[in-house]
């Protein structure tokens, strides 16, 4: 296990290094000049040169990567090219909102998706199963931004029941939660459907396993067989997608944050891309990539914990 963890950490570092290199290359690949975009039409050549230099754009890629890494070792992500504010400060303002949105959405997906999947699997081919299938497939196919717009129009515009933008008044937790409801449902919708389908398929498969039949033959109650033995094993594949799920939710959060004007990482990165604020883009994407890799890493560890048959540091076969 220890060697596996060491290997994964090394792999994680390599992935992050590649991300930094890629982001540095991006500056040269993507059209659009940050200096003219940020400074506007009346910027003088001296101002433009000063800004380029502050972004390291006048330096070779290996120098840009080196500076970024050096900054990270000093606990800094650099300085925002536009406002001159430390990026760590901007990220620490935005990241909690995105994490809360992603985790709440994921919790919502689990709370709704798994029961839907279980109900379908335990009532296969029934009318309710078909209804749940229709709902879950529809949810899977609706992108979060479409769901977000629908929710906004229904609950914020027509019913005036929930807020449409922002995160609420500072210091007011209830207001914060009210502002979280629509974005988290919008972001969770795809995953509710996806989890429902995944759990249904997985549980149906497990329910046909010999050990389930044996348990039933031994006279164990159906409730015990379904929920204690079958469901536990059926959920293992679900755990495996936790890491990927978090990454996907962080990606989806970009759209949701734009639609609901939530000041999270998605909006921060999106706005930075718009104006080619490369130091901010690089740091923001780096943080998201780091969280994505970290979530995958923990998902793998959890996987082995839940299923002792899986030995990650040994080759199968």
């Amino acid at each position, binding site marked *: 296990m220890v060697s596996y963890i060491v290997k994964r950490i090394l792999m994680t570092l390599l992935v992050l290094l590649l991300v930094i290199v890629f982001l540095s290359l991006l500056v040269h690949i993507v059209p*659009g000049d940050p200096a003219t975009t940020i400074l506007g039409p009346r910027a003088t050549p001296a101002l433009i040169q000063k800004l380029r230099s502050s972004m390291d754009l006048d330096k070779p890629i290996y120098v840009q990567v080196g500076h970024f890494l050096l900054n990270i070792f000093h606990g800094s992500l650099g300085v925002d090219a536009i406002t001159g504010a430390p990026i760590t400060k901007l990220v620490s303002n935005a990241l909690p909102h995105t*994490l809360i949105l992603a985790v709440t959405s994921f919790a919502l997906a689990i709370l709704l998706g798994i029961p839907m999947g279980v109900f379908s699997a335990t009532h296969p081919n029934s009318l309710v199963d078909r209804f749940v299938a229709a709902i879950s497939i529809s949810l899977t196919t609706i992108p979060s931004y479409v769901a977000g717009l629908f929710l906004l129009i229904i609950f*914020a515009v027509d019913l005036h029941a929930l807020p449409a933008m922002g995160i609420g008044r*500072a210091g007011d*937790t209830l207001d914060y939660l009210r502002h979280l409801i629509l974005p988290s449902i919008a972001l969770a919708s795809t995953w509710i459907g996806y989890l429902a389908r995944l759990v249904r398929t997985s549980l149906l498969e497990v329910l046909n396993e010999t050990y389930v039949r044996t348990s039933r033959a031994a006279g164990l109650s159906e409730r015990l067989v379904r929920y204690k033995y079958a469901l536990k094993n059926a959920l293992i594949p679900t755990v495996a997608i936790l890491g990927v799920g978090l990454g996907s939710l962080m990606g989806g959060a970009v759209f949701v944050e734009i639609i609901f004007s939530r000041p999270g990482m998605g909006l921060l990165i999106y*706005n930075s891309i718009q*104006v080619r604020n490369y130091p901010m883009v690089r740091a923001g994407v780096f943080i998201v990539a780091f969280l994505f890799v970290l979530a995958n890493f923990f998902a793998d560890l959890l996987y082995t914990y839940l299923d002792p048959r899986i030995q990650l540091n040994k080759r199968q076969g």
Partner: protein
Amino acid sequence: MKKNLWYLLSFLLVASMLITSCASQAVSSPTAAPSTGSTVQTPVATVAPTTAPTVAPTIAPTASGPKVLKVRISKDISNLDTDNVTGKEEDTVDRAVMEGLFRYDATGKLVPQLVDTYTVSPDGLTIDFTLHKGVMWQRGYGELTTDDVKYSYERFLATNPKPAYADDWASLDHVEIVDKYSGKLVFKTPQATLWTTVLPMTSGLIVSKKFYEEAGPDKVKTDAVGTGPYIFSSWTPQQQIVLKRNPDYWGTQPYYDEIDVLPVQDDKTAEVDLQAGELDFSNISLASEDKFQSDPNFIVQSIPSTAYSWIGMNIEHPKLKDINVRQAIRYGIDVPSILAAAYNNKAPKANALIPNGTLGYWKDAPVYTRDVAKAKAYLAKSNLTSLDLTLTYQNTDEYSTWAQIIKANLQDVGINVTLNGLDSSSFWAYGDSGKDKALQLFAVDFSSVAPEPAWSTMWFTCDQVDLWNWMRWCNKQFDTLHTQGIQTIDSAKREPIYIQMQQLMDADAIAIWVTNVPQVYVSKPNVKSVIYPGGLAPMLREFSGQ
């Protein structure tokens, strides 16, 4: 064990929400305590004090609590520093917090602000002024003096680096301090734009020397101290800027106790936010005007603006060098179709550079209507029967519609157009160091901060080739007239200069003028909004209830 894990995770989630919602993320500042197109009269005489520098009675908060206005800006602020200010969002905030020697009032008329009395010399080269006494800087930065005026305006003369708005004060020689309240602006040449786009706008705002020296160049990008009716209370990146009523304001107190300025980038999102009651005021797209017009819960203002949109032709490009080809394109494109499709016929047709309502508007400009036979004849004159061109534009709904119509129109003439839609940043990158050489046809819009013809003509001079003169059209006579127009103070003498400049542009067929897109603003019925002349930015200090 697993149960405990879940408990722990749930606890962490709730705790993080509590911490996040309670944490003060705002960058707080310590606090010590529509009319458009109006003719601006050039002040020529000493004006008696208009407002006594006394503290006006404070408006008491209503029983329902403080009066808070929620206003949308299209993007978050990035640089509030007056000599390098980034855009109209920063202008909006700066002008609510800071004040200049002069300003536009709610009717769009130029009026004295921080000056008590002033005299302009007959040659226009000096302005003697005295400041109102007892005007205090917000947040305890002391009293406004001529030292602040000198500091504010002479910053524009810096050379290393030259500020972005240095040209606004290009004719300034120096600011002379006579005493604490009296001074003199001394110019090298007369400058007509002083009275339209400089003194009453952001470049004319007075900054606190003490605050600027104390805060440093980075801090002043996102913080502001002024003498104005609102205090820059806090800025929470991506969330809001809070402007609070200045209780010690020397002039008439503003109506609102607080203005929350909220950055909402997407127009559609802003429209939903208006309908959901989250915003009290916002600009919206022209396409959505009808929807809000028919809703009794909103007041809609459609204001002619100083923005001008056109199809440009890079005359240095081998394919467009021949004026006959450019004439063929001019006669081949049906501008009314563009206006119908992209703006639902709500935008007026433009026939020349300077918009109606601005001095120099050429009302007799030739109107080119589509004539395919004539276009083909011009193409034949250049010994061509067909031509392949690329049209570059921003890939917004508006310009994508333009592009489709231009492509279809020119197809009939025998010109095949390849469409090159770009995101905003990639598009504007053509303004960098001659990248515009690669352009052929392009669709673009510029705007002027106020109705001032020099702001429209300044982009088409020879020194703008390789920068923003994407037609790459260089006409020495145009340049001479541009300088002459700026140095002529008399409006009656200025007007023919600008008409002549537009005639030069027209003669060379370098552009197809399309429209001056009106700006549409929506507010709740209880909000009385005021927009700056030019229609591009709200005058927050004049907003009130109704």
